[in-house]
């Protein structure tokens, strides 16, 4: 994926800032051309014994330095703002797509890897934009300095530039190898740290078997391997660096070699020579920088590809679409939405729903059909790995179905992930996740609830006792991912969060670690007293099964049987076995 159009679009919301920066930085980079000329003037003045000329040149030199500093400081003032806006725009757009775009959003990588895309890949892209911005200055400096050198002596200019081009080409030629060595160093470093980590994690087994000796010998081998990679990497890296630095010496040397006769012929003045001597090291630096810019293009390409992979099905413009980063004054929190009576759930019909995990490592579901009537209580049950959780996740659009139909009343649901949300439906996953905020924000999720509703929600989720135990009740900050609450408290909070949405369809994936059997039975009872809700519950517990209007028994990803508990116990061997096992 070509990163150039992406980088180009990223500055769109701030065209003025972008172009101002282009000009300021171009000035910063091009000004030293004048410095070279002034040094030349001073030496010519020395040669001619012209003190006034020397003094004038020195003053101009000083003015250029001051001007350049002013340029630098003002570009930083403006660029720091532009840089942060660009990077926040990219990050915001990624997060926005994952959180709000229609369709199923399963992270195609671990959370850690996804965060590093937010962090490093957005950095790489914005650094690339920075390079584009600097490119004008770089090209400007090279063009003007070459133009001045040519006007002094085309031959010497050629001698000065040839080695630089050579170094540029050699560096590019070596870049593949550098990358390979870097990669090898990275993997061998990972092996070492990985092994040390595993070794200490397993220290109890290691001690018990008394095998730390041979294991440390193995570590020593990994160490050696890493050292070899590191030395190879250092050598090549230093070689390339000095190739670039050394070219300044070689360029200068060649200019001296070819320049001797020109100087003696009086065609080159001392001032002319110093201009060359001043320009050459700076030009070599800029050539090396140009090479790095080229490399950054490829890094940005990888970064864009990774961002697109994270968003799975987003158009590439999603990365850069203009969006307000923040509004002044937060909008008031909305009250929970309510469905108009004719849109409320009368019947949910699921027909032939199928889904298979792409890598086949977990149980998918095949041709699952059932209906949920308003106010009914349906339990999905089955053994571990029979596809219960997958079923509710596919239903809610958290996983993309392969085929099948879902209808809300008579309406066909095209995108369950944006349709089966509050006020229509709400969900408590098996392992709910909270975020580091107060308990009450975790429950309301930004909706404004009045005191009595909140009280009802807390009561329904059986959280009253918990609140007494927490230091600041509802205002307790729950810690990272809810770490300061017990597992049961997290799950009860998640249930409360679901009740707070006041949705028509409530989907629970297994409350067994949140509540003991008796409390769970009370919860169902209260829920039906207070709410006109339709429930779909994954459970293997007796109170839920006994209360169920309908049980969907899953086996190997298919519906094995559907019916009431009595019916299933009467005719289904698998149901009887499950019922016995969970006594």
């Amino acid at each position, binding site marked *: 994926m070509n990163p150039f159009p992406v980088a180009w679009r990223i500055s769109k919301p701030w065209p003025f800032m972008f172009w101002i920066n282009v000009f300021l930085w171009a000035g910063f980079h091009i000004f030293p051309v004048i410095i070279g000329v002034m040094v030349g003037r001073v030496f010519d003045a020395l040669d001619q014994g012209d003190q006034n000329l020397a003094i004038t040149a020195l003053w101009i*030199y000083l003015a250029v330095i001051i001007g350049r500093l002013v340029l630098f400081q003002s570009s930083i003032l403006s660029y720091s703002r532009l840089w942060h806006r660009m990077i926040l725009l990219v990050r915001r757009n990624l997060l926005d797509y994952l959180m709000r775009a229609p369709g199923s959003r399963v992270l195609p990588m671990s959370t850690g890897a996804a965060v590093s895309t937010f962090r490093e890949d957005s950095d790489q892209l914005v650094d690339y934009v920075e390079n584009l911005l600097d490119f004008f200055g770089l090209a400007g400096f090279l063009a003007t300095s070459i133009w001045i050198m040519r006007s002094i002596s085309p031959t010497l200019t050629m001698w000065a530039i040839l080695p630089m081009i050579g170094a540029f080409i050699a560096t590019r030629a070596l870049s593949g190898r550098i990358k390979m060595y870097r990669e090898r160093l990275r993997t061998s470093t990972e092996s070492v740290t990985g092994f040390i980590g595993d070794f200490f994690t397993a220290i109890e087994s290691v001690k018990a*078997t008394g095998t730390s000796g041979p294991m440390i010998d193995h570590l020593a081998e990994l160490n050696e391997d890493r050292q070899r990679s590191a030395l190879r990497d250092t050598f090549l890296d230093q070689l390339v660096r000095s190739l670039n630095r050394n070219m300044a010496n070689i360029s200068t040397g060649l200019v*001296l070699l070819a320049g001797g006769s020109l100087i003696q012929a009086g065609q080159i003045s001392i001032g002319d020579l110093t201009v060359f001597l001043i320009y050459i090291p700076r030009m070599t630096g800029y050539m090396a920088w140009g090479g790095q810019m080229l490399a950054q293009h490829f890094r940005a390409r990888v970064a864009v590809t990774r961002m697109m992979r994270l968003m799975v099905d987003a158009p590439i413009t999603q990365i850069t679409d203009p969006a307000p980063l*923040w509004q002044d004054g937060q909008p008031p929190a909305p009250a929970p939405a309510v469905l108009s009576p004719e849109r409320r759930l009368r019947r949910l019909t699921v027909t032939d729903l199928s889904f298979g995990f792409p890598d086949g490592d977990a149980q998918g579901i095949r041709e699952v059909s059932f209906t949920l009537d308003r106010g009914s209580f349906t339990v999905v049950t089955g053994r571990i790995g029979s596809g219960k959780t997958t079923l509710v996740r596919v239903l809610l659009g958290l996983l993309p179905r392969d085929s099948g139909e879902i209808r809300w009343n008579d309406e066909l649901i095209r995108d369950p992930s944006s349709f089966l949300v509050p006020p229509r439906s709400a969900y408590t996953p098996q392992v709910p996740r909270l975020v580091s905020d107060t308990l009450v924000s975790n429950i309301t999720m930004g909706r404004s609830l009045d005191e009595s509703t909140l009280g009802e929600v807390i009561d329904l989720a059986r959280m009253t006792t918990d609140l007494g135990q927490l230091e600041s009740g509802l205002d307790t900050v729950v810690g990272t991912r809810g770490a300061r609450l017990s597992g049961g408290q997290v799950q009860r909070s998640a249930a409360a969060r679901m009740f707070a949405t006041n949705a028509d369809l409530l989907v629970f994936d297994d409350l067994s670690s949140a509540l003991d059997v008796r409390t769970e039975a009370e919860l169902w009872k209260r829920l039906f007293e207070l709410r006109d809700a339709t429930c779909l519950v994954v459970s293997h517990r007796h109170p839920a099964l006994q209360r169920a209007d309908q049980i969907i028994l899953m086996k190997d990803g298919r519906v094995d049987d559907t019916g009431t508990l009595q019916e299933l116990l009467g005719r289904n061997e698998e149901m009887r076995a499950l019922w016995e*096992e969970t006594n």
Partner: protein
Amino acid sequence: MNPEETAEKSRLNLDVLRPYLATRRGWFALAALSIIIGVGLELWIPQILADFIDEAFGDVPLSQLVRLATIYIAAGVGAQLMSIASRYVGTAIGWSVANDLRIDATRHVASLDLDYHTHTSAGALIERVDGDIDAVAKMFSHFAVQVISGILLLGGIFVLTFRENVLAGWTVVIFSGFVVLAMYLLRGFAVAATKAERGTSAELYGFIEERLAAIEDIRANGAGDHVMTTFETVMRRYYTRSVSAWIKRSVIWTTSIGMFSLGTLLALAVGAYLVFQGQITYGVAFLIIQYMSKLEGPIEEITDQMQEVQKAAAGLGRLRELFNRQPTVPRVGTSSLSTDPLEVEFASVTFAYDSEPVLDDVSFRIAPGTHIGLLGRTGSGKSTITKLIARFYDASSGTVLLDGRPIADIEEASLRARVAMITQDVQLFEGSVRDNVAMFVPDHDDALIENALNEIGLGQWLASLPEGIDTHLDTAGKGLSSGEAQLVALARAYLLDPGLVILDEPSSRVDPATEIVLSAALDRLIQGRTAIIIAHRLATVAHVDEIMVLEHGRVVEHGRRADLAASPDSLFAHLLETAKDGLIRDEVQL
């Protein structure tokens, strides 16, 4: 932490390193030689140029100019070669010292009491034996080479400029002093702002990380809008703090750029003045400019590297602390265990941990070949019993006897070979199947390892592997299910051919098919051996000969399983009744 403490910690103390450095004198000499020649050439190159300028605009034959230009190129190439050489040697020294240090540190940490490990996360230990030691390695590869050549270069420039002209010399010296002073004064200018910036960026990534982890909760409960509104606040805070940190830092950059540009101007002005005075030639004037512009590199490198030195010093300090820590369980036993199933006996064993009693006067005897199930709530002392048998700790009072001998008298190697312990969490390593079963011990026959895997029920799995036991298991056996990992652990124990097996059964559920394979494997492993099992599955307890129930560090019930199950008021019978889902939970009320 108060500033004095920091200063104390970051003072460089090379004690820990001394033994590692002494053996590498030759390498150090090589590094020193390449540094000295390199710096010498770098100082000489501007002199050649100065000579060239003077002679070119004087009256010398062209051949003389060609000679100088050629020398110039040769010296330039030489200087670069020396710079590559010194960096390479520095890096080589750094890595080899770091590797030796890493191995010694790992060995030392591994020898420390289990107690130390339970209180120190593997992550923190990686930081010690890898992170800190890396900082030490960098000190050699970067600091030593760069700072030493930087200092030599600076010194050389001062001396050589003074040699040309005293005024020029003072200009260069005073200017350098001024720059160093300014850098020193500005050093703390942006620290607080940068710290605040780090804080908000951590907050930003933390926010993103938590929301990504909760993506299903958020989407299925329609909280996307709420997330994005909250994110605005986080972004705004990040923007404000981070921009202000950039701007503060830019003041330092501007000052540095400004000072060095003024330096060159100053050199030019002084040079021009001296030429007009007739004190120096053009060539020397240009030489002064060149020397002045050469100051920037070393001064910046020295300032940068000082931070690295502080990191290395802090790392060395932590390493010294680590090496000073010593294991407390003495390993002096000499007697060997027999090759029969082992008898285990606890005679009035009391064990206190941080003066918290964990085992209180525990006595029991397990006859050779008996299989016993240990039950009790979390903290009742079950795992302490197994850890005393593995001799991770010594009893506070009383004696643990194996094979009729006090455990302290038994030779370490014999104990490890005869007692196999299988922990709840099985850690696999990146390496071959052989390495994982043999725990990297090289001298096991292939046939023995294959036999162990077959016996334990992994025969089919082994047959499915492309390279048999030499198949590489990806990063710590990611491809294996937890049931298979558990089987690998059983195979490890089987390979040892122990007289006593201690098993802490995983408390999580596995699928029924795996459960059958696991219990068959366990049966095969403990057959003809003494076995102590901390059981979590009813199925496992169904097979043992005896049951021992612990409560608050005391044995409250010990007897034959069949007898206890039959007696209606035994704790064991009660527990069987309340156990759910085929699992015995630690929390179950006895």
